[in-house]
C-alpha cells in the first residue's frame, strides 16, 4: 500500500494537539529510547523539548559523530531550467512571474558540470523547474548521463515522475532523487499549488517510493518550512521517513529542513520557523533517525550554517547558484530563491576544517558501466 494511503493528516493533527501536554520527563524518555513511531518521537518535537535543547543537541552531536564521523559531504546544485508550467505561491520560478527564462542546452549543461568539477565537486544535484516540453524525461536522461561523466554522484531534483521515467534516470546513472513534499498538509498544499502538474498532492507524496522501486538508491525528502505549522510537518515527515525505511529498506534516506527564503515572488511565510525551532528539528530527527542524512543548503546564512554543522548535519551545498547557467554565465537568468551563504566553496571547506570537520567532495563511485557521453568525446 503506497504511503499516500496510509498517511492520515487527522492522526497527525491529533498528535500535534497533544504535544503541549508532554513534560521534560517524556522528552528525556523519548531521547533515551528513540524510535520513528509517532508515539516514540513526538515528545522530541514538543514545547517541553525546546527547554531541553542543549541536552538534545549534545546527544545529536554524539550520534552524528558516531555514525558519520567528523566529515561533511559537499555538493553543488546545477540548475537546468527555470521555465515552469506550475503556479506555486512561494516559488521564484512560478508561471507568470516576470523573470528571464532559460533552459540550458545539453552542451551548456556540460559546461556547467565542468565548472563545478573544476572546483572539486564530485557530487552534483541537477535541479529544474517543471516543464513537460523544455524539461522532458529524455532531456533529463541525457543531462544525467553527461553530468555523470564528470561526477561520481548525480542527484535529480525535478518534477515527480512515474516508475518508467525513474527507471530511465537510474539507468542513465542517477544515484538519488530529492523531492520535497513542500507541505504534508493537504489543504495548505492545495492553497499554494494553484496550477500545473504539481497540484497532484498524492502523486508527489508517493514519488520517492516509485523512485526506490525503480532502482534509485538515495531518497531526499522534506517539507518547505513556513507554509504550515512546523510541528505538523515534522510529525508527517516522521511518518514518511518510517514508511520509507520499512518499505524501501535498500534506500539511504536524507532529510532536509529548508526554510522559505526571499524569492522573486515576494512570498511571506505564514508560519515562519525560528533558528531555535530549526535546531530543535535537526536534533529531534537525528535522535529519532540516527542513520538519516541531514542536508543543509545555502538558503541559511554562513554564520548559522557554521553552528549547525556540529548538531547533526551530514551534507552541505557550497558555492551555489540557483539560476540556470549561473556557474559559467552568471546573471543570464532569474534565480529560484535568494542564497544567504554566498561564500565560495574554498571558503566553506576551509571553515569546515577550522571547525574540525573534513570536507568530503567524493563519497561515491560509479557502480554501473557508463555509456559514451558527449562530454567524454570532446
Amino acid at each position, binding site marked *: 500500500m503506497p504511503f499516500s494511503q496510509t498517511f492520515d493528516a487527522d492522526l497527525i493533527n491529533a498528535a500535534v494537539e497533544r504535544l503541549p501536554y508532554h513534560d521534560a520527563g517524556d522528552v528525556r524518555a523519548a531521547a533515551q529510547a528513540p524510535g520513528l513511531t509517532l508515539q516514540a518521537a513526538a515528545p522530541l518535537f514538543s514545547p517541553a523539548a525546546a527547554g531541553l535543547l542543549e541536552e538534545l543537541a549534545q546527544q545529536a552531536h554524539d550520534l552524528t559523530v558516531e555514525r558519520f*564521523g567528523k566529515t561533511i559531504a559537499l555538493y553543488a546544485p546545477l540548475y537546468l531550467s527555470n521555465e515552469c508550467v506550475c503556479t506555486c505561491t512561494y516559488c521564484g520560478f512560478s508561471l507568470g512571474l516576470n523573470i528571464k527564462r532559460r533552459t540550458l542546452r545539453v552542451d551548456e549543461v556540460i559546461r556547467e558540470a565542468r565548472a563545478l568539477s573544476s572546483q572539486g565537486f564530485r557530487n552534483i544535484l541537477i535541479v529544474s523547474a517543471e516543464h513537460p516540453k523544455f524539461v522532458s524525461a529524455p532531456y533529463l536522461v541525457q543531462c544525467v548521463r553527461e553530468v555523470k561523466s564528470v561526477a*561520481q554522484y548525480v542527484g535529480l531534483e525535478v518534477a515527480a515522475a512515474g516508475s518508467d521515467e525513474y527507471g530511465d534516470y537510474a539507468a542513465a546513472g542517477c544515484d538519488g532523487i530529492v523531492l520535497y513534499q513542500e507541505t504534508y498538509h493537504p489543504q495548505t498544499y492545495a492553497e499554494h499549488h494553484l496550477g500545473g502538474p504539481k497540484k497532484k498532492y498524492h502523486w508527489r507524496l508517493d514519488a520517492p517510493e516509485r523512485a526506490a522501486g525503480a532502482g534509485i538508491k538515495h531518497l531526499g525528502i522534506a517539507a518547505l518550512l513556513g507554509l504550515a505549522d512546523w510541528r505538523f510537518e515534522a510529525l508527517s515527515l516522521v511518518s514518511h521517513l518510517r514508511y520509507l525505511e520499512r518499505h524501501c529498506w535498500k534506500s539511504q534516506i536524507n532529510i532536509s529542513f529548508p526554510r522559505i527564503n526571499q524569492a522573486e515572488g515576494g512570498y511571506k511565510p505564514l508560519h515562519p520557523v525560528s533558528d531555535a525551532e530549526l535546531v530543535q528539528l535537526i536534533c529531534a530527527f537525528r535522535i529519532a533517525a540516527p542513520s538519516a542524512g541531514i542536508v543543509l543548503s545555502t538558503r541559511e546564512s554562513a554564520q548559522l550554517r557554521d553552528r549547525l554543522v556540529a548538531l547533526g548535519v551530514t551534507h552541505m551545498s557550497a558555492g551555489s547558484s540557483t539560476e540556470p547557467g549561473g556557474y559559467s554565465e552568471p546573471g543570464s537568468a532569474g534565480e529560484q530563491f535568494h542564497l544567504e551563504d554566498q561564500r565560495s566553496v574554498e571558503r566553506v571547506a576551509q571553515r569546515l576544517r577550522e571547525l574540525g570537520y573534513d570536507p568530503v567532495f567524493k563519497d561515491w563511485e560509479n557502480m554501473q558501466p557508463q555509456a559514451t557521453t558527449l562530454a567524454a568525446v570532446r
Partner: protein
Amino acid sequence: MTDLLTLGTRTFQSRLIVGTGKFSSPEVMADALAASGTEMVTVALRRVDLDAPAHSITGFIDQSRYLLLPNTSGAADAHEAVRLAKLARAAGLPSWIKVEVIPDPRYLMPDPIETLRACEILVAEGFTVLPYIHADPVLAKRLEEVGVAAVMPLAAPIGSGKGLKMKAAIAIIIEQATLPVIVDAGLGVPSHAAAAMEMGADAVLVNTAIATAGNPAMMANAFRLGVEAGRIAYLAGRARELAVASASSPLTGFLKPAD
C-alpha cells in the same frame, strides 16, 4: 619470539588493521595510523579519486609503510562489488580487496549471499579477498572453500562500539577456521579488542573507535597495546575459569599430612 600474521602471500607483525573513514582531517588520520603501529589500512574506494589516487585520501597514506586494503563500501550487490574491485585494480591500487556488500543503509548488515558470489568471482580473478561477514560459522566455511584469504566477522554493527556482541558465534568460527579470522566492526574500546584476541582471533579491524575518539592518535596507541596484550595472553594460555573461588594460598593446607 616471532609471531607473524600471514594473509595471502604477506606477513605482518601488527595484528591491528585500521580503517580510514570518519577522521576530522587527513593529517589526524595519518598521525593515528602511525600511533597504531598498523601495517594494513583499509580505504573506501568511494572516497578515492581513481583518476588521481594520490590527490585524495590515499595521498596521505604512506604505501611503503602500510599495505592499502581497498574496500567495496557502497556496493549493494555482488555485481557492484566486483566492479569496484576492478576499478581499483585498474587505477593501480593493490589487488587486495575487502569485500563489503551492504544493501541495508540503516544497520549496515552485509548480504551473505551476494558476498559469497562476489568472493567467488574475485578469487577467480586473482584478487586476495577478505570478506566482511556476519558472525556466521557456515558462511565462514563456505568462504574458505571459495579460497578467500581470511574471514572478517562483525563483533557488532559497524560503528556501534558495542563490543563482542557476537562472541559465541565468533568462538565457533575461530574454532573451525583453517584461515585467519579478523574480528571487524563494533569494537569500541581497547578491552574489546583485547578480548577478541584472547579468544584466538588472528587480528582485529578498528575504525570508528579511533577516528571519533577525543584524541585519535592516543586511542590508536591504546588499541595497539590492547591487541598486543590480548595476543600475548592467548599465546600464554589462559588459566582455567572456575565457577567457585580457588585460593592461591589455601587456608586448610595444614590439615594435609606432611610427606
